[in-house]
């Protein structure tokens, strides 16, 4: 064990701002990325369902084959 006490751990030998500033931003960015990715998934499902209904893809269970013609 490297530390005499928890307060010594948090102080990081006087480098607390640098060490915790590094770890803080990293984990904040990872949390943000996870939230954005999960939200995008929900948004995409909702938007595509609305789009499919609007273009009538799901009426009577008849689907068109894949489109987007080659240019």
């Amino acid at each position: 064990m490297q530390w005499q006490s928890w307060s010594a751990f948090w102080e990081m030998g006087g480098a607390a701002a640098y060490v915790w500033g590094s770890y803080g931003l990293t984990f904040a960015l990872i949390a943000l990325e996870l939230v954005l990715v999960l939200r995008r998934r929900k948004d995409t499902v909702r938007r595509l369902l609305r789009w499919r209904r609007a273009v009538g893809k799901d009426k009577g269970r008849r689907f068109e084959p894949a489109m987007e013609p080659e240019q």
Partner: protein
Amino acid sequence: MKSTDRGPSLLRFAAPQNFYPLAGWLAPWFAAVAALLTVAGLWVGFFVAPTDATQGEVYRVIFIHVPAAWMSMFIYLVMAFWAAVGLVMNTRLSFVMSQALAPTGAMFCVVALWTGALWGKPTWGAYWVWDARLTSQALLLFLYLGFIALTRAIEDPRRADRAGAIIALVGAVNVPVIYFSVKWWNTLHQGASVSLTKAPSMATTMLVGMLVMAVASWAYTVAIALWRVRPMILERERHTEWVGAVLEREAQQQGGRA
């Protein structure tokens, strides 16, 4: 008996309708590995690895700085690889894969620069210097941002794919420049502590903590890229029957609202 009606089993997953469920199944496993290794790596980094003789405690930034910097370079190379596969084989899933990796590569690039700045201040006396390592790493961030901006700005996905692939391939030249910058130029940034040809110039527990965190970052990248690529696949394949079926299932799980 060998079945001849199916292609080689791995190539099956080049088809979006096969890759989509595979990605959904794999991602949570990689995320779990990433979480476990992060806990293990941080434990080694903070409670097992000793205080550095010259730098004191501030060196503990290394456990995210080096893995983040490695991943930022590695992800760019993987992006370039998928871009090349897409251009040569004309497989659209490859382009989508390289686009799903870019935001995470940019994130690790920001982390490497940020933690480097916070490490540089107490050890060099400056958050930033225009040294070859730092400058080429900053260029990597702009390559990521350029790639993301370009692929999103072009409406036609085929043109966006190709334009992005060119940036990914041309920009890949920068990655060896970053890696070898500390050798080629006289930089303030220290040389590599870990290389394939020499014994590492650091305490074993420090090295172990760093390598565990590097594997954790890699597993995280796989998980997040697979999660990100899934809605992108749905978007691209929205005209197909299988996406219709997937959407119906998702809508039911979300409580039938749309």
